[in-house]
């Protein structure tokens, strides 16, 4: 029951084990419905909306990485915006300056961010808790400045377009990159959506496997009590550094998706505010839950991209006020986020069921 005390999280659901070999019908139905909706979305919405969805995926991937570090391993990072930016710039520079194809660039962005993450993680062996949070905050604040300092490579404050040579009515010119489906059967936005959806799902499946593995359990053990974990044979230093690396790689891949979705990046897109968005996505969805950051990213995206533009003109400047108030209310009434709320109610239902089948409830619960 090691994951019962997530950082700022409510109680983890203790779902009563189903009787052996029963097919979890409900779960399959939910999976199919979710998959069907995800597939249908780009056909139901206009292109601009679909591109916003891809932006949510970038956020979800990065938040997933942050969740591994903050939710499961207990190291609060306010600096993942810097890694997101590193991934974005790595992708852009590899494609534009070195002429790399898209996918190797995305993979390289992940690898680069893994290395950078390990480098940031090294001091984390000595620096802990809130001091570490502030070091990551400094990294986040520094990132856009580093981009500006090295403007000869990064384009500085004038931004950087991800371009490839393309044929246009006015001759062959360097144009923003386009991801197009083979044969052109899907609109570019739809193709982008599906490609990155698959990537997002892969990242979350990887995340899930990490969390459920032996390594994942040692992550949580380190979070809950470092000394105790050390005593019981967990290699704390290796776990921490590896977590930092993997978490950073995910943030970097998120950044790559962001860059490819927009086609143009700018240091002002990677300020400290981005790191805060990631934290918001994690806690709104639910820290230390695999799917939480995805739900949080969607909730945040819905608020920023769908709901707030509908506000009456007079209240537009109030958008952040509403966001702030909602965040505080959520922390007051459901510190476990949306998943936490769901788990609590699921736990209640499960408890009811457990009372009905008291015999089965006592054994078998060995997560």
């Amino acid at each position: 029951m090691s994951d019962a005390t997530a950082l700022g999280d409510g109680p983890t659901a203790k779902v009563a084990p189903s009787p052996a070999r029963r097919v979890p019908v409900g779960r399959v139905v939910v999976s199919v419905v979710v998959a069907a909706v995800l597939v249908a979305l780009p056909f139901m919405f206009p292109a601009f909306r679909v591109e916003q969805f891809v932006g949510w995926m970038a956020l979800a991937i990065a938040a997933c990485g942050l969740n591994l570090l903050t939710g499961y391993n207990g190291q609060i990072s306010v600096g993942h915006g810097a890694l997101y930016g590193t991934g974005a710039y790595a992708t852009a520079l590899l494609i534009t300056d070195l002429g790399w194809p898209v996918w190797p660039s995305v993979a390289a962005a992940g690898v680069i961010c893994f290395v950078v993450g390990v480098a940031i993680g090294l001091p984390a062996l000595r620096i802990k808790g809130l001091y570490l949070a502030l070091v990551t905050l400094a990294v986040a604040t520094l990132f856009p400045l580093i981009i500006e300092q090295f403007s000869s490579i990064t384009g500085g404050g004038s931004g950087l377009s991800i371009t490839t040579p393309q044929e246009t009515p006015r001759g062959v010119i360097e144009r923003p990159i386009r991801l197009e489906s083979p044969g052109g059967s899907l609109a570019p936005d739809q193709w982008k959506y599906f490609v990155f959806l698959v990537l997002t799902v892969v990242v979350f499946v990887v995340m899930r496997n990490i969390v459920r593995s032996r390594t994942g359990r040692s992550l949580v053990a380190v979070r809950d009590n470092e000394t105790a974990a050390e005593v019981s044979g967990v290699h704390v230093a290796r776990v921490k550094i590896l977590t930092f690396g993997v978490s950073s790689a995910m943030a970097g891949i998120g950044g790559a998706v962001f860059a490819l979705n927009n086609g143009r990046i700018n240091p002002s897109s990677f300020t400290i505010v981005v790191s805060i968005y990631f934290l918001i996505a994690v806690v709104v969805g639910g820290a230390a839950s695999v799917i939480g950051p995805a739900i949080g990213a969607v909730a945040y995206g819905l608020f920023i991209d769908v709901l707030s533009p509908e506000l009456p003109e007079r209240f537009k400047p109030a958008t952040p006020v509403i966001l702030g108030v909602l965040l505080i209310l959520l922390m007051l009434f459901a510190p476990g986020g949306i998943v936490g709320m769901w788990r609590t109610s699921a736990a209640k239902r499960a408890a009811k069921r457990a009372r009905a089948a008291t015999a089965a409830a006592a054994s078998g619960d060995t997560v």
Partner: protein
Amino acid sequence: MMRHRTRRVGLATTAALLAVVTLAATACGGRDDDSGSGSTTTAKEGGSSSAAFIDPSVDCTDYQGTEGINGDTIKIGTVRPASGTYAIYDQVTTGLNAWVTYVNQSGGLKAKDGKSYKLELIKEDDAYDPAKTPALVKKLVEQDKVFALVGDIGTEPNLSVRDYLNEKCVPNIALATGSTQWGNNKQYPWYIAGLPSYATEAHAWIEYLKESNPKAKIALLYQDDDFGQAYEKAIKKAIKGTDITIVAEQGFNPLGGTTPEAAVTKLSQSDADTFIVGLGGTPCPTSLKLKPDTWNPATIVSVTCAGKTALSLAGGKDQGVIAAQATYDPSDPADAQVPAVQQFRKDATAAGLTEQQIDGGITGPGWGFGSLFGLGIENAETLDRAGVMNALWSLDTDSFGLVRDGVTVITDGTEDPWAIEGFRIVQREGDGWKELSPITNWEGKSNSFAG
């Protein structure tokens, strides 16, 4: 343990399902309204001056020339920051909105087809975040089906959608920025700036210095981005071959977190007799305030800083400041007497602007951006997107909006992409400006001033 495995199956199923359906969807084909980018035609030879600058049959693969014109209403869109750090620029859009109100109150814009057209303005908020702009512009174009974008704010937000709008052949008129990048209209013919090029402004400063202080020693403070670097490069280009030198320079990074005080202080220790402040936003007036009293150079400020709103933040240190001016300043007691300004004040008040908004100096440009669009509609030979752009690429008129009398408004698609290229040099005196040197028009030269 069992629960464990079934869960994994659940997720794996989801993933597999997604993959399968994705492939299926790919095979089935996408949305119908996608334009695709297949058919490529030969590049247009820019040069034949008799023909219209834009020929949609050559330049566009899927040209929707009259989209956004419904009966006697033309729908236009604009993107600006209504929230966040740069929400102040929302006032530009307030000015644009007032101009639209004024047009509708006075019966609409008269096009060459003899009909009058009313306007509908749709505003979107990108919080000045270039990552948010593309989705909003695509919404305006694809969902709201606007005819054109007018007065979009910010260099980066506008750059983030330049290729898209160019490919869609949707006009982006009177950009609220003077980046030198808008001079590239041969490649991006659907973009026309609403402000003069920052490079031309810098050139005007140096021309003035050549007369007033031919051996000027400049201390240069510029914003370290596209905006400030435009000044920096143009100044360096303009002083070549003169006796004017830059004796000290400092780039200021607004994201850096410090005030410009250290930079100004260091500059003040140089032997410069001229201080050029190429900063935008509040750091511009505060750098006047932070300048040590022991240093008293001739101080030249960016036009973005030369309005009542900005200079009121200089803590009284705005007196004697020099700027290049292309438009009237309604808060200047001298300009307030000009009939065009009095008319503007009357119209703008009727359209709902307050005295404070009119005098502040931020709504005026927005009003002007609308007026430039209005010129395009009124002069278009055929009322469609290409017709309006071609009208704007062959302007020859005295004035629009608050452009000063004597500043010529001439464009030529192939030669001269800048509507405003004339400046006079003025010095701050009381609440107004004293003319130091009269208007000079650098018609058709703006691109050559850019560094």
